[in-house]
């Protein structure tokens, strides 16, 4: 997202807060969010895909709501109104095809209005069918989760992406041999899928009450957090949704301060560091391991400042709209061990994974197997980190990055179990040692995560391995 886009969206948030009181505000937020997912979707080489992806986002949200909604929910006037309202906004966007040959809101000229209306009616019809005529939804919810994971797999795996792209190119009468993994750049799908899965799972287990289509739509495509999180939970989000508090100067001040920090972090510090952070190109060109460390560490800070900056902006924009989005970062590089680091890095994602993967897996292994507890810890921590790695992209480098952190967490777990108490006692007895112990832990954690970023930043595993060797003066 460019600076201009960011500022415009934040300005919209402020405007909405100032101009639209109470109930109308949620309609305006919904409208802006729908427009935003079309507007932010970058141009794609496959014809009109940059329009169909946001449309599919809405379709998936509709269908997943249909899976979880109570019977007859469709007869609720508000849900019907939301459906009609969404349709109207999408139709308005599609009408821009008559204003310009190129896209105005969308990256390219929208498809024919009739086609869009047809697709929308299919999604809506299916949603109505799911709500009204599906008696036992459990297996359908599981199937829905499976489908979302399949789409996720296709988008995140380079081989599947290229294969799917070639099929789509064939369908749209384009040259299939030109298919690239970047062809399927579906904006925001990583976050969207996890939000939907969370709602589906929580509805399945009865942890979430019935949701209205409007609040569900806003929750899933809420524009401040659509692109880069934070990954909120419905239970938390709807509290904000139901209590759109009047604006106070204190809120405004805090959000402005947060926004300034976010803009500074993202567009000044992170973008400056991005100039010389490690990349596939410069990793092979750097002449000495000393400079390789410099660009690797630059990447560590760039990634943090970029992501934390976006989070600040999202939280500020959410705040302007009256929503209190969760924190995502809390001084991760100032932590003295890897466990603390992961409690403070991309907090909303790690909490999500903990809730929907780590905890269920741990419970399952402890209940249903005779595996030693230490092995259970190893399996759960490594597999959890692999899942986090694969969420970023289903490829070898992210897999190895996950293993790197999984083993790191396991080693820290064993270390603190064996020596933690002794070290703590030693630190308490000899106060002078305390800062040294803390600094050592901090440096070790920072360098451990920085080395891990090599796998994260370089998509080719071979190159990442060579780079790691060179970092230590080999290769």
């Amino acid at each position, binding site marked *: 997202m460019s600076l201009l886009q960011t500022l415009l969206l934040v300005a919209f948030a402020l405007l909405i807060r100032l101009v639209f009181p109470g109930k109308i505000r949620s309609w305006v937020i919904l409208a802006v969010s729908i427009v935003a997912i079309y507007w932010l979707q970058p141009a794609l080489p496959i014809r009109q895909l940059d329009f169909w992806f946001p449309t599919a986002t809405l379709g998936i949200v509709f269908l997943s709501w249909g899976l979880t909604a109570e019977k007859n929910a469709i007869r609720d006037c508000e849900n019907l109104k939301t459906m009609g309202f969404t349709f109207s906004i999408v139709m308005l966007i599609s009408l821009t095809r008559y204003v310009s040959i190129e896209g105005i809101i969308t990256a390219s000229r929208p498809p024919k209005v009739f086609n869009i209306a047809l697709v929308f009616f299919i999604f809506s019809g299916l949603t109505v069918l799911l709500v009204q005529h599906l008696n036992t939804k459990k297996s359908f919810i599981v199937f829905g989760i499976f489908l979302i994971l399949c789409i996720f797999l296709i988008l995140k795996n380079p081989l599947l992406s290229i294969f799917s792209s070639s099929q789509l190119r064939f369908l749209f009468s384009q040259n299939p041999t030109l298919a690239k993994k970047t062809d399927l750049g579906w904006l925001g799908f990583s976050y969207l899928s996890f939000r939907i899965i969370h709602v589906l799972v929580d509805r399945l287990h009865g942890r979430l009450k019935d949701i209205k289509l409007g609040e569900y739509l806003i929750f899933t495509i809420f524009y401040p957090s659509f692109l880069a999180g934070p990954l909120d939970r419905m239970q938390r989000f709807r509290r904000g949704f139901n209590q759109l508090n009047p604006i106070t100067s204190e809120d*405004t001040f805090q959000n402005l301060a947060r926004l300034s920090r976010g803009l500074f972090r993202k567009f000044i510090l992170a973008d400056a560091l991005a100039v*010389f952070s490690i990349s596939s190109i410069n990793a092979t*060109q750097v*002449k000495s391991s000393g400079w390789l460390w410099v660009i690797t560490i630059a990447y560590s800070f760039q990634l943090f400042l970029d992501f934390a900056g976006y989070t600040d902006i999202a939280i500020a924009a959410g705040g302007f709209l009256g929503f209190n989005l969760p924190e995502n970062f809390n001084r991760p590089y100032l932590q003295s061990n890897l466990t603390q680091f992961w409690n403070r890095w991309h907090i909303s994602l790690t909490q999500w994974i903990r809730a929907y993967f780590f905890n269920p897996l741990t419970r399952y292994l402890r209940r249903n197997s005779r595996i030693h507890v230490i092995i259970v810890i190893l399996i759960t921590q490594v597999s959890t980190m692999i899942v986090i790695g694969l969420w970023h992209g289903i490829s070898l480098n992210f897999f190895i990055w996950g293993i790197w952190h999984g083993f790191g967490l396991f080693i820290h777990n064993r270390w603190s179990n064996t020596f933690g108490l002794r070290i703590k006692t030693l630190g308490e007895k000899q106060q002078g040692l305390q800062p040294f112990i803390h600094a050592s832990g901090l440096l070790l954690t920072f360098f451990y995560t920085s080395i891990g970023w090599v796998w994260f930043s370089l998509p080719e595993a071979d190159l990442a391995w060579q780079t790691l060797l060179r970092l230590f003066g080999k290769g």
Partner: protein
Amino acid sequence: MITEDKDINYNQFIKNTMIKGLSLFIILNFMFSFVPKGGNIGGISLYNRVFPGRARLPFGENPRNAYNLSLYDLATMFASHEINAGPKPDEEYRVILIGDSATWGILLEPEDTIGGIINSNNLKSCDGRKVYTYNLAYPSMSLLKDLMILEIALTYDPDLIIWPITLESFPVQNQIQTPLAANNPHIVEPLIDRFELSVTDYLSDINHPSFWDLTLVGRRRTIFDALQHQFYGVLWAATGIDQTYPINYTPAQQDFLEDDTMFHGWSSPILPVEKLCVDIIKAGHILANGIPILLVNEPILISKGKNSEIRYNYFYPRWAYDHYRTLIQNQAQHSGWHYVDLWDVIPVAQFTNSAVHFTPQGAFLYYQQLEQPLKEFLCQ
């Protein structure tokens, strides 16, 4: 009541912050407009302090991969060059190279440029000083641009100036077109006035900044570029790369149309001498004030393709280039300039993506021919 008080305080605080911020912004903008273009600010640099100085003046059309970008602020450009590392060492015989992209070294690594090759040959002057060449060429064909660079380069106390030239740098209409000249009126205009250069018909090509262009907001691009240039210093230091080296490039054109005989709208048999800026070369000699200048007619591609009997290459029809060579030769003799004509020393196979860009082997052949004339200066 407490909330209300708090609200009032925050309201006041936001209002004060806004007013103060806006006022500071306006004042800063206004004050910045008094900072002269190319002033000392441009000289603040991390190069030669934190990072090694660059071997060539910054130029880059693909900054992300070249770790280099084109700037128009000569102060910033010179500040990042290795010539700005410090005072000239006593044991150094300082040679300065100015010129165009051929001398800058498009597609050549710094050590493969003509300057780099001179340095690797460990030449010494008769008084025992080590010859070190500074590549101050810049990729655009304009003698006026060379003169601007020469004026600044002279402040670095050179012992010899090597000035490779080619016909394409001479036409009067080419002089100010180059962005480096067009965007530095404070350097170009005094030179034009002082030497009464024959470019007066093209003065409208010079960009004169308005008041708003001089404010902080107006100069945001220049400031941003200068900052970015500093950040690229990390990768320059780490990689030694300052341009992209594509494996595949379009080779220089060798086939031409049969009626393609014009040069800048001029036709055979003679060039309009008054439209060629020979006066800039004269100005350069006056500016050098006794510091020897070695003028070199740089090598060009002599094509062997279709209709090559009428054109040497993309730039030059044969008649124009032949006339130019005679013209410069005569002028050099008449004015007592040190001049060597190396136009045909590189075979066609050693040219790369342009009729004046060559391979490392080509550069070496060029050096071999240049070495003797260069050595003649080392004992003067």
